């Protein structure tokens, strides 16, 4: 839902980042307002996953330029946990397994860290159990998964549901979902998408990072951005995704070539 007067939640300006001294993001700008659903599409290696990791503060990625404001605050100055506490959420493409750490306890500690930040009381174990059982319904997840270690031995689909469960508990203002559709069969996709739609509201925003149209069939984006070689090449409405689906990414290559040619001096400067 686009409202031009809605408050800006995330303002990314000319963001540049590298991993192991290799520049991956080469100047990304993006403004996300409350109530909006954005989709970033692109091929593997286009930098779209890097964008999500940088926003969440993964230590392996180094910001070398640009800025990110989260509700007017410098996001990049914050620790990953602080970003989460003020309402930024990253749904991982490959959620890690953490043996020995109980899923339920993990969810409770995370939820309370967010609540504390918001000035709410921490939930005791009983109150939290009530909450988590209510939120389980959003993703139609078996409560048995609460008793297991975080993501340990979960199937691909179960891991993704666990991600959306966390989102349902943390109630983020900006949710970034990195390839949430990968590895899901059609039923699981529908459940996960249903969860995302359920959680979307006029007060929050969602950034979907995806390779395929099929996620966008079930979650309708307000904006679609096509990313390649570390930049956003084109922005449009949901029809842009359909266009990509039909014509493929070939035009992107041509565009990149053109862009690289015009930007060449700038790139040389950047490297120097």
């Amino acid at each position: 839902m686009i409202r031009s007067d809605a408050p800006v939640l995330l303002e990314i300006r000319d963001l540049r980042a590298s991993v192991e001294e290799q520049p991956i993001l080469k100047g990304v700008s993006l403004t996300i307002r409350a109530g909006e659903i954005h989709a970033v599409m692109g091929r593997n290696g286009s930098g779209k996953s890097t964008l999500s990791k940088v926003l969440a503060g993964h230590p392996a990625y180094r910001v070398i330029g640009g800025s990110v404001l989260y509700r007017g605050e410098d996001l990049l100055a914050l620790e990953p946990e602080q970003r989460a506490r003020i309402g930024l959420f990253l749904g991982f493409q490959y959620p890690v397994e953490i043996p020995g750490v109980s899923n339920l306890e993990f969810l409770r500690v995370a939820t309370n860290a967010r609540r504390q930040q918001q000035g709410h009381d921490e939930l005791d174990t009983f109150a939290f159990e009530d909450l988590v059982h209510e939120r389980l319904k959003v993703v139609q997840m078996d409560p048995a998964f609460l008793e297991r270690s975080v993501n340990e031995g979960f199937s691909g689909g179960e891991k993704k549901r666990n991600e959306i469960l966390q989102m349902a508990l943390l109630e983020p203002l900006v949710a970034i979902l990195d390839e949430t559709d990968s590895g899901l069969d059609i039923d699981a996709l529908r459940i996960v998408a249903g969860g995302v739609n359920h959680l979307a509201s006029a007060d929050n925003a969602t950034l979907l990072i995806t390779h395929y149209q099929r996620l966008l069939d079930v979650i309708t984006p307000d904006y679609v951005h096509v990313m390649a070689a570390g930049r956003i090449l084109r922005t449009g409405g949901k029809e842009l995704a359909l266009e990509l689906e039909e014509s493929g990414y070939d035009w992107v290559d041509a565009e990149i070539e053109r862009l690289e040619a015009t930007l060449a001096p700038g790139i040389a400067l950047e490297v120097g």
Partner: protein
Amino acid sequence: MPAAPMTSAATVGDLVSQPYRYGFVTDIETEKIAKGLSEDVVRLISSKKEEPAFLLDFRLRAYRQWLQMEEPDWAAIGHPPIDYQNIIYYAAPKQQAKKASLDEVDPKLLETFEKLGIPLSEQKRLSNVAVDAVFDSVSIATTYKEKLAEHGVIFCSISEAVKDHAELIERYLGTVVPSNDNYFAALNSAVFSDGSFVFIPKGVACPMDLSTYFRINSGDTGQFERTLIVAEAGASVSYLEGCTAPMFDTNQLHAAVVELVTLEDASIKYSTVQNWYAGDENGVGGIYNFVTKRGQCRGDRSHISWTQVETGSAITWKYPSCVLQGADSIGEFYSVALTNNRQQADTGTKMIHVGPRTRSTIVSKGISAGHSSNSYRGLVQIGPKAVGARNYSQCDSMLIGDQAAANTYPYIRSQQPDARIEHEASTCRMSADQLFYLQSRGIGFEEAVSMMVSGFCRDVFNQLPMEFAAEADKLLALKLEGSVG
């Protein structure tokens, strides 16, 4: 363009290992004997403690045996040779004989223990734990003695026990760990200074937890404490041991002996949180912790349980063991050993099944970080008469960083077909990705480390008395700061 701080990678480095919290030295006048070991030194220690003849004989026999023995070198441990003539074998704060009341104890000593979190005074002492506080070579105070005496429980320093309960000492001392058991046990038997004695009479469940806190203060003193715990038929006790030492750039030798005896239906639960100074990040200084701990389940259906959290010492050699003689007796070993920087730990247990239907459980969790080396070395031995014996062992290693070593050497020896022994081991790691995942859900770095460590160690922490478990959790997280990421 200012580089934005990118969280963990930078900040973890900045946090760095927290300084050792207990590294201070108490400035107190100390009576020390001259460095070096000889028969005269052994006699001097014995006379200072006004010991009966049987004990002097015990010491001298041990000393002569020690002279004939060779320092072991079989563990995966490397250290420069120890000069046994360069160690002081007796150091005591200058206050005469143990005081009847705490008011007479040097306030500096009380202050020291308070700083260590072990208040001893009437007003502040822990409400449910009786404490024996040992400072260098002597016990300076024991709390709740009178209350325990009402139940017939004896809890005092071993020096006092030698005077007041000589017959018990003579009956039990050296019967579990003979003076010639090994090099360091022989050394301890010759020169042991102080330690705790616990006696729980028949049928008594000790009304509170008992605890001994060992503090090494002098830089050139060896600590050779001796602990003896006897639980008569049907008796039970839970005992805790804690230890710290100041930071010195030299190494101090700690060669303790602990003996436990349980008679029929008795049970002893022995918990240790070992936090001796471990040396700095380059491996300079720290305690050499070479101790012999052994329990003997003499009576049928008796039970000995060792729980240890080993975080300190430059080098640890320690194998708390159970000799399961009584039919249906039970031995347990729950261990967390954490090594960081240049620490070396070689620890484990021996479960010697002698009697029929004896059972043992071993749960060992090793965490290796930095350039440290952490070895589990265990022996499960099933003798020919141990019909129906059972053992279950689980040894898990967690590796943090690619410079740390985790070794596992679980020996199994069985001579009894009607026995069942099972051993499982696994390794895992704490990775930057796992920590980031937790952080990205709003969980702070320290808490994330602590969650992962306590998840890994849960089976062991569950065995610790409540207040120790929380303490152990924090201690481990603290020790690991700066080693992940």
